[in-house]
């Protein structure tokens, strides 16, 4: 059972994530996707008379149960099924990030940026608040996120999903290679 405590290799994790697609279809005829939950939360809590949020969100409540499950799964996996939260990334990535001035590599995320204390700095606000805003705005404008477009849409050979994934990478590459050197 030791393998379960180790990080799972890509050739195990990839197919398991792929199986989430038929699992949701067969369990309840649901399309795999996560970012719609953000829309349902808006519709449930702050509809504010906006047409986009005028629908019966209760009919989509399954998606809120699904994302609540993801958080519980995160708790179970990190607290009971993992020995370490150090991620064995490539040496060249560590070298590049050190060149940008980063030093903490002992958690899933760089804790020097993603902490409550860093909210006092412009970079903290940028990575946490602006980054989150762009994720929420962009996914809804694009009609899906990595789950709904990159995995589910691509699995169903949707042209829109291919365009979306190209967009995801344009944005990610511009941020990483052009903007990170200016930000840090």
């Amino acid at each position, binding site marked *: 059972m030791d393998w379960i405590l180790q990080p799972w290799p890509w050739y195990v994790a*990839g197919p398991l994530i792929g199986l989430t697609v038929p699992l949701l279809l067969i369990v309840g005829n649901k399309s795999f996707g996560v970012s719609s939950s953000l829309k349902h939360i808006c519709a449930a809590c702050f509809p504010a008379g906006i047409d986009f949020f005028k629908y019966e969100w209760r009919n989509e409540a399954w998606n809120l149960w699904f994302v609540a*499950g993801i958080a519980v799964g995160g708790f179970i996996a990190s607290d009971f099924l993992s020995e370490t939260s150090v991620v064995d990334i490539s040496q060249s990535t560590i070298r590049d990030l050190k060149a940008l001035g980063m030093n903490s590599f002992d958690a899933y995320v760089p804790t020097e940026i993603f902490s409550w204390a860093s909210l006092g700095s412009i970079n903290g606000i940028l990575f946490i608040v602006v980054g989150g805003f762009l994720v929420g705005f962009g996914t809804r404008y694009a009609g899906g996120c990595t789950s709904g477009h990159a995995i589910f849409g691509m699995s169903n050979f949707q042209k829109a999903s291919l365009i979306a994934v190209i967009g995801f990478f344009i944005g990610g590459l511009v941020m990483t290679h052009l903007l990170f050197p200016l930000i840090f």
Partner: protein
Amino acid sequence: MGNFKFFLVGIIFGIILIKSEVVSWFRIQEMFRFQDFHMYGIIGLAILVGAISIQLIKRFNIKTIEGHYVSIPPKPMHIGVLIGGIIFGLGWALTGACPGPIFGLIGSGYYVYILVFISAVAGTWSYGLLKNKLPH
């Protein structure tokens, strides 16, 4: 069972996100720097398995456990798919987390991601507010 079964599927999916390190900001950086195959292998195999599964469901008319036909709505194509995709990509590289991992990280005890989540809800809300003024 009602919606509880989706909660259980979410738990399984959340465990996979953590154990595969997809939730890691560093893995996303490694991907955007083309310095390891990990993320590409995961996404590629997930699509392969997802595609084969959907083809099997369609070909053999596999029904849901409640006996209903499976229907998959198409993804609408418009210019916003590309523009929104780019905006999401910028945010993905900053936060190191797409929506699934945001929930996974909160569960893992990275509570500052609650603020990433709230910001993402604000972003979605702002899109709803501006939708009619944006090109689609």
